[in-house]
């Protein structure tokens, strides 16, 4: 029974990062998800990524909507404030939180139902606003918590557990995010930690809207081999565009883009995501390329994973709004309240 298990984090629990913290310090309550749920692996990857990045947990805010996936923030970063909001509305809550304090790291977790159905509008508009956050969708093609109905990301014809084919086209959140101007768009698989962890690290370091669509099989309702969101299917059809490696700091780049098989994508703080091209054709800096690649792979039944698109100099919402470089929740009262003199001027103008 899953309540006996903790999220599987493969590491000697004792290793300490620059803050002297162990993985344990980035964990939280025990998962109450089904044993084997893909979401638990993503939880583990988030923990791993935050530990690797030496993040001070209290400078991270974790937010989610409603669903099995949206429960996971209870399972990671126990020292961070969390907000398990309402179904499909995590983006607006995160927008407000980010406006109030631009200095924290915002990790939003959602599900495919939470994002592609009830939350589709908020998702699209959060992308447009270039909210500085990491938005992770744990994508299992179904509504886990309500017992397995198809979600809008379930592929057409991919059958339910009972064998009924899904009659509707799937919504590809990555294509949507790219055409809406997201700055960082990646797809991964809960079963591919080597790819997932560096992508999460880069997403967190990215300044702007970073979107991660992580296919995460629902072992209870949507993991039958005929389902295109099952472990078996995804393993068999996973087309990784590149091997990825996250590099902290600014040390010399050996291989430059074009020269060979490696691409370095630079984050705003100088850290880099190094891509060892598997499929040489695809340039993640071009939205047109990204869309074409995704559609080409999809057409032959493959799932393109890896860093699909990145815009290396995106502005975030605060840049756009010209808001103070200080957190808005910490501006001194003297700068907030104009006082009676200003009011007297206003009165005068209204006489």
């Amino acid at each position, binding site marked *: 029974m899953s309540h006996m298990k903790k999220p599987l984090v493969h590491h000697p629990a004792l290793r300490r990062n620059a803050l002297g913290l162990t993985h344990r310090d980035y964990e939280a309550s025990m998962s109450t998800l089904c044993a084997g749920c893909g979401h638990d692996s993503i939880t583990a990857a988030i923990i791993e990524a935050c530990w690797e990045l030496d993040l001070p947990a209290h400078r991270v805010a974790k937010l989610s909507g409603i669903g099995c996936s949206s429960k996971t923030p209870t399972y990671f970063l126990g020292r961070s404030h969390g907000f398990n909001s309402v179904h499909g509305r995590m983006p607006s809550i995160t927008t407000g939180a980010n406006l109030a304090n631009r200095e924290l790291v915002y990790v939003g977790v959602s599900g495919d139902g939470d994002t592609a159905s009830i939350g589709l509008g908020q998702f*699209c508009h959060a992308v447009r606003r270039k909210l500085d956050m990491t938005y992770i969708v744990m994508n299992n093609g179904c509504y886990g918590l309500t017992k397995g109905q198809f979600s809008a990301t379930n592929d057409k014809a991919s059958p339910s557990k009972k064998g009924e084919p899904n009659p509707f086209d799937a919504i590809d959140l990555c294509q949507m995010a790219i055409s809406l101007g997201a700055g960082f768009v990646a797809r991964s698989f809960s079963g591919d930690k080597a790819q997932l962890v560096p992508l999460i690290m880069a997403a967190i370091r990215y300044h702007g809207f970073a979107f991660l669509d992580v296919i995460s099989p629902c072992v209870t309702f949507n993991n039958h081999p005929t389902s295109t969101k099952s472990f078996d299917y995804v393993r068999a059809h996973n087309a990784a565009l590149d091997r990825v490696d996250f590099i902290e700091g600014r040390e010399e780049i050996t291989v430059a883009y074009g020269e060979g098989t490696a691409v370095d994508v630079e984050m705003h703080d100088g850290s880099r995501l190094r891509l060892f091209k598997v499929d040489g054709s695809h340039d993640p800096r071009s939205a047109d390329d990204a869309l074409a690649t995704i559609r080409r792979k999809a057409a032959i039944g493959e799932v393109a994973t890896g860093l699909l698109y990145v815009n290396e100099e995106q502005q975030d919402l605060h840049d756009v709004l010209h808001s103070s470089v200080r957190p808005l*929740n910490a501006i001194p009262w003297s700068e907030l309240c104009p006082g009676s003199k200003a009011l007297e001027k206003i009165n005068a103008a209204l006489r």
Partner: protein
Amino acid sequence: MSGINDFVITFATVNGSGSASANGIFAKSLFRMGIPVSPKNLFPSNIQGLPTWYEVRVSEAGYLARREGVDLMVAMNSQTYEQDVAAVVPGGWLLYDSSLPRDFGRGDITVLPIPIAAICAEHWTDTRQRQLFKNIAYVGALTGLLDLDPAVVRQVMVDQLKGKAALVDANMKALTLGREYALAHFGCPLPIRARSAAGTDGRIMLTGNDAAGLAAVYAGATVCAWYPITPSTSLVEAFERHARRLRMDPEGRRNYGIVQAEDELAAIGVAIGGGWNGARSFTATSGPGISLMGEFLGLAYYAEVPVVLFNVQRGGPSTGMPTRTQQSDLLACAYASHGDTRHVLLFPSTPTECFTLGAAAFDLADRLQTPVIVMSDLDIGMNEWVTEELTWDDTTVPDRGKVLTAEGLDGFRELKGREWGRYQDVDGDAIPYRTLPGTHPTKGAFFTRGSSHDENARYTEDGRVHARVLDRIRRKFATAATIVPKPEVTIRDEAARTGIIHFGSSIHAVHEALDLLEQEGVLANALRIRAFPFSDEVADFCRAHDRVFVVEQNRDGQMRLLLMGELGIPGAKLIPALSYDGMSLTAAFVREAVLAAGHPAEAGAAK
């Protein structure tokens, strides 16, 4: 009743024709002459080409409520001649553009024909100018007919045109043309006319939305999200306008953030996210927006997140009458969202109170850690009112309520004798201590959720724990009743058995009605509700009177229902006086309601 400094004049025009600014000049001039005026815009729900009325009541006595019966009609819209002529009281006047002469067939009124179009055509060639100056020309005629002080009018114009000399001259020319024509052709001034007075000292002219936007600036709001909707749009526009001037930091960056959200669900969500993260946050909406915010309001209520919502009420239900006024969202707001929920409501009655209560709302939201809804309406919000000037005490410090700093967290055990827990009632007032993200490396982190949780914010499915938390929140509302603004009680006669309960924009009609009733020998006391939950004074007032009229601008007697339901007051004692045609309330309506006490139709209206 009409006469010097006491009359009603209505301008019938077409929207988009530029008459608004001319009408504004007229009203402002009377104000500057020291005469209280209450102008009201009756505009259609479209952008251009439909009938619009600008109704101005002039009352040296300071009665600002609407009054029926037009003494002087400025009929500039041929589409509506018929109803406009009908609106004039016998013995009244009708000014119209006689470039196309017509007989209005009313012997009992005086028609004042002025060939305005012709005059303007004569002096201007550009069609747009011709149109615009027509408006100034009729204002000019009025300066003659009503004996307005030309110097004052000129100054108002100068101010409005920010002194642009050329423009001022052109406008003055139009003004003079109209004035001269009137002086030359009619017996000026008319018996109804203006006379300088001292009725506006210490007053300003301001809309409630402008005042509320300013309140948010003064209260230190830094996060605002909204979605455009009439009549609340101008509230957020005012916040932005004032913040741009008053909230720039040294590097020219903004000490506030405003997001035009994709809809109202997102708008309230952004505001709640901001409140959760320690910024004073608000949104503003009307009608349909309120319905869409229900789910989120329930979350903020139960997760105890401070947020301020301005509801500028309009005519419901559904899309209803977007450009008319009502007080019909009381139940929708008091009990917004499924489950056991209730919300703190404030009821401003004037623009000045939009400023004071608007600012108070942010303190209350922080202190009570719950949504506070400011219940304004279109009448207060969008019309320009003669209202007390705004004042601010520079010693004011915002009460952010129980928010723990890092030191506060470290010292909590010491100070309170127990460990901190997000939803613990430590002080016996049922208000817990909150913490903000990023405050302390190891202490104070908790998980905010709308699902059932215990006193330490831990998820629970133990119903007894859930009930315990709900009970505390209920007690928190008992605390709220003791700290919300108290009602305003007007005692005309200690011995009076008749009371009138009212709120919001009904204030002017009710206070005028008290005078009218007194003239009829009916002495009544009044209580103006300023907040929900009700403070004790409300029940006391009901107890102290045999019959209490509840004056409301809605169909279902929603405040009466709250009084019965929340205070258990017998329905028999509460007599509904309900006006819901979207027009702001008149003293005559209140007077009739009281005199016709218990009239079945009205009693029925509350069923």
